[in-house]
């Protein structure tokens, strides 16, 4: 491994299902908020206020504490042109950074190609969860896609240790390129060997890891713990990706209880991760970006909220200048976009800032244009 401790690392946390921005970062003193949300509103005394206008949801205490320490940038009014209220299409837009047309290559996959052009490290990017997000998908870019670090590997159904090591030994030989087998076969060989090698290296991460932090037992927290384990193992991984269970934030009904649990899980995991890195003196190496595909309808439907538009994102880390960025979209009825928060802050500005200012790669190529930076990186 050629891990340079100074190399900046990006952790992306995807909250799919579209969290309700209005009840996440709450404009609690706005009279419209109170009108639009007769059942779902969070009362001012429960909001974790950051000033006299806005504040965090009460389940986000650990995030609020990080905010108070100056570690959280709140990116308000984030969205993309011509909002689409489909989860899949919207997520695609976030993943490909291309709102205008269907694109297939992911912005982080392109970033990985930039960071490791000669494919020297099979673990330049690691994703935790089931299936590779399109954000990381670019043909020819190798990304380890891990369901669970503890059980990750090839042929996991062969569980007796000696049988398994024999099986993997054969696998490695089967995937060794053979002379004159052609480019596709060589590619398959390389992919198989990379996967095996990646799994081999990754499997050492949990045993190298020790920490006083105890993450919660939910999937997301465990994946965040895996992210910490991989980072701390020093494999030279630069991009780490995971997310809450698909669709979890899609709270059309019975929002309050679910929402409380979700943000409690997520905030605790983010805070645990931050302090885990701190404990290992690597806090300055990592920036976290937490996003969702769109916001939800301003007016509640009685027990939940329907699909909306403008949202909020968070960037967290020691390298982050904490504070509020962008403008909270107006709740004036005539300022809404078909009943939704009007986005005012192109998501690609956040991407460009992270790429140029933090990851030190040129965002122009990756995003297909120049986007104004937001000043949230130190």
């Amino acid at each position, binding site marked *: 491994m050629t891990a340079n401790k100074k190399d900046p690392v990006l952790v992306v946390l995807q909250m799919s299902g579209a969290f309700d921005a209005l009840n996440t970062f709450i404009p609690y003193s706005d009279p419209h908020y109170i009108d639009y949300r007769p059942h779902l509103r969070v009362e001012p005394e429960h909001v974790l206020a950051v000033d006299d206008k806005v504040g965090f949801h009460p389940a986000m205490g650990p995030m609020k504490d990080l905010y108070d320490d100056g570690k959280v940038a709140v990116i308000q009014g984030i969205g993309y042109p011509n909002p*689409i*209220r*489909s*989860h*899949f*299409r919207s997520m*695609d837009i976030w993943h490909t950074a291309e709102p205008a047309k*269907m*694109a*297939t290559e992911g912005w982080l996959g392109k970033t990985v190609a930039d960071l490791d052009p000669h494919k020297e490290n*099979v673990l330049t990017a690691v*994703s935790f969860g*089931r*299936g*590779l997000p*399109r954000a990381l*998908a670019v*043909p020819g*870019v*190798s*990304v*380890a*896609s891990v369901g669970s670090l503890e059980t990750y*590997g*090839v*042929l*996991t*159904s*062969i569980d007796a240790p000696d*049988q398994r090591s*024999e*099986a993997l030994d*054969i*696998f490695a*030989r*089967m*995937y060794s390129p*053979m002379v004159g087998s052609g480019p*596709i*076969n060589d*590619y*398959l*060989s390389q*992919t*198989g060997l*990379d*996967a095996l090698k*990646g*799994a081999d290296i990754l499997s050492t991460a949990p045993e190298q890891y020790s920490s006083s932090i105890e993450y919660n037992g939910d999937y997301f927290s465990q994946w965040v713990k895996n992210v910490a384990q991989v980072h701390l193992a020093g494999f030279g991984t630069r991009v780490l990706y995971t997310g809450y269970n698909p669709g979890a934030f899609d709270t*059309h009904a019975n929002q309050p209880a679910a929402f409380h649990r979700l943000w409690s899980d997520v905030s605790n995991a983010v805070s645990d991760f931050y302090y885990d890195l701190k404990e290992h003196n690597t806090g300055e190496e990592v920036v976290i970006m937490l996003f969702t595909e769109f916001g939800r309808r301003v007016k509640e439907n009685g027990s939940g909220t329907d699909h909306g538009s403008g949202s909020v994102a968070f960037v967290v880390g020691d390298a982050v200048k904490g504070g509020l960025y962008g403008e909270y979209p107006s709740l004036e009825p005539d300022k809404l976009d078909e009943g939704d928060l009007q986005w005012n802050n192109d998501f690609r500005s956040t991407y460009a800032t992270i790429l140029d200012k933090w990851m030190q790669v040129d965002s122009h190529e990756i995003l297909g244009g120049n986007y104004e930076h937001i000043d949230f990186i130190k």
Partner: protein
Amino acid sequence: MADHDISLIAHLMRRAGFGAQYHELEALTEQGYEATVAALLDPESQPSGLDLDLAERYFIEWSHFTRGVPEYWAWRMINSKRQLEEKMVLFWHGVLCTADSKTQSYPTSYDELEMFRKFGMGSFRDLLLEISRDPAMVFYLDNCLSHKGAINENYGRELLELFSMGVGMDGEFNYTEDDVKECSRAFTGWTLANNVPGQPYGRYSAKFLYNPADHDEGTKTFLGETGNFNGEDIIDIICKQPAAARFLSRHLYRYFIADEAQVPAWMDTPPNDPDTIKMLEDEYYRSGYDIRSMLRVLFHSDAFKNSRFALVKSPVETVIGTLRLIGDWTTPKPGFEFIFDEMKYMGQELFNPPSVEGWHTGREWIDGGTLVHRINFTADFVGDVNYPGIRGMVDRLASDGPTIEPAQLVDGCLQLLGCYELADETREMLANQAGKDGVIHTDTGDFSERVSKTLQMIVATKEYLYA
């Protein structure tokens, strides 16, 4: 003798269907290749073998308005006796693409699949006409937003670029930007009768409407012909073009015969096998654009018969093929929805092709994540002798005698999986592995485990990634 070659039948059923169990292959071999092809090409005369009434009563969420879900379709792929019919539906779903992520209407998506079932092996002209008035498509590519005097070119362009001709061939462009505009003008007024609210509200499908008041009646010049064209005229002109013959032939070749360049590269990348493409093009004209006739020529071509293991299996083929092989999900039971996720994790989400261009195929199916997922998925299933299909393999191998040589065990497994072949080195490695614990007794308790381990190693090979 080739007519009764089981490995050729295995190949045919992998390509023209989603694979078959060995005893089914034997029965088909008995009938012969010619007869099997004839039956595949004539689904209407075959019983579907599907007990959809039972399935729909069991999976209560599959009511009349939610048949457009991946699980429902997957059920049909697994259980339909009309294998080529479903294979062609998947083919057209990947060529004439719409995505549920935009249309958000299960009933409308379902109607589209039914249309593919009905027209997918008929005349290409009829199919292009049907897709042009398919409500999912009209909405997906915004033709409902294209008006007389204010065209939206989205459908007009993709009809030419991705559905019928392609940007170019032999290094020349097939049409101009003006053709795109004129084509779009001809399709004005082809719209939707009703607006369908997205899920979970819309429980009825969108319907096509031709609105003459919004149709541009002016004169158009399209691909060199001039007249007051409507959409039908445009399709007639398209179908005459050599580019249409080439486009359809290359697509069929890439889906059924061998991996080829991706669609956007076709203008500048000649076909790998120009003779076979020419043969299909000729049949296109001879038969009056009849897809079934082209398929008949294709399945009887030497190129097809000699193309064993020249295609990387798609995720859908991998998942459906594995479930057909193990003999599971022939009757309803809980937990079927997972298979939708499995295909998605391997890189192919039914009803959501990544773009209007469809899925990229061949080696692009495989990356570090999808490879591991594919191997582990397949190995998990073939390693479980409780599945009837796997149990059948164990019993069959045991019936050969009280002991079996390691090489015979490997060869037997390869045969029963569908006449697979391995590189000599790989075969030898697996035989050594199978024999390392001494003589293989077929009548002892550990025999099924030794079989299942060998099966697991086979499905992990590079060779097994191919169909």
